[in-house]
């Protein structure tokens, strides 16, 4: 799987640099979009998984759902951080400033900060059931921000918006298919990273139990 992801990653880079059209105004800065939006998509999928795993953990009290939730939360926050870094890199030349307190940027930042809270609970709490339950509740509550982020570009008044409106349907085939391939690469990368992280969490849990036994 790693080899296939690497090949697809290089293919996307080739398509982004050589095949997709150059925006006359934004020039190369526009191409950040092929990495920025899939990062946001991956973060959204990860946070959806956190919510599903949290519900299943609260219902079944099975450690595997806690591992899945924690791994997805870590990856969601990694990709959310990448969104918050690559966004300002694009905004600096286009808006003239790296940050603006407009709806989408603010709601993404709120999401990131909620998950900082999630990790504070995980790290300052013990390894026990109570910490897992509290973090599961945070994981469920935090997910309600994801649809707010999605609709934020339409929900608030147009004069409060700076973020580009979604218009993938109107794009030329080279832009559209490169973007779709990039989405696929990020999704596969996320699945691979998630499986690897869950495997490590299981291993860690096994080591902790053995430490206690020995």
């Amino acid at each position, binding site marked *: 799987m790693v080899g296939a992801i690497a090949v697809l990653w290089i293919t996307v880079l080739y398509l982004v640099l050589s095949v997709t059209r150059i925006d006359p105004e934004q*020039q*190369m*800065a526009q191409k950040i979009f092929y990495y920025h939006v899939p990062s946001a998509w991956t973060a959204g999928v990860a946070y959806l998984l956190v919510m599903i795993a949290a519900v299943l953990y609260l219902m079944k009290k099975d450690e595997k759902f806690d591992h899945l939730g924690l791994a997805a939360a870590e990856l969601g926050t990694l990709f959310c*951080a990448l969104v918050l870094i690559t966004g300002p890199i694009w905004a600096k030349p286009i808006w003239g400033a790296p940050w603006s307190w407009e709806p989408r940027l603010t709601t993404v930042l709120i999401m990131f900060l909620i998950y900082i809270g999630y990790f504070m609970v995980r790290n300052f709490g013990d390894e026990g059931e109570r910490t897992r339950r509290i973090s599961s509740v945070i994981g469920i509550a935090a997910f309600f921000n994801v649809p707010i982020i999605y609709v934020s570009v339409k929900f608030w008044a147009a004069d409060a918006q700076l973020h580009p409106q979604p218009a993938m349907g109107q794009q030329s085939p080279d832009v559209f298919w490169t973007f779709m391939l990039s989405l696929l690469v990020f999704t596969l990368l996320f699945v691979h990273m998630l499986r*690897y*992280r869950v495997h*490590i969490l299981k*291993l860690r849990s096994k*080591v902790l139990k053995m430490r206690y036994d020995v």
Partner: protein
Amino acid sequence: MMYKYFGFFLTAFLVIFVAVCGWIYTIYRQEKALLKELKSLNANKSELE
């Protein structure tokens, strides 16, 4: 031909690339450390038995 704002694109690309590779490398190091500890715990357990 070098287009305008290439440096911004390159920075964003490298940030993502380094973050993903760095994350995978960190998890790989964790895996190695955990497997080493598991091996030594298994050895201790066998000695005790």
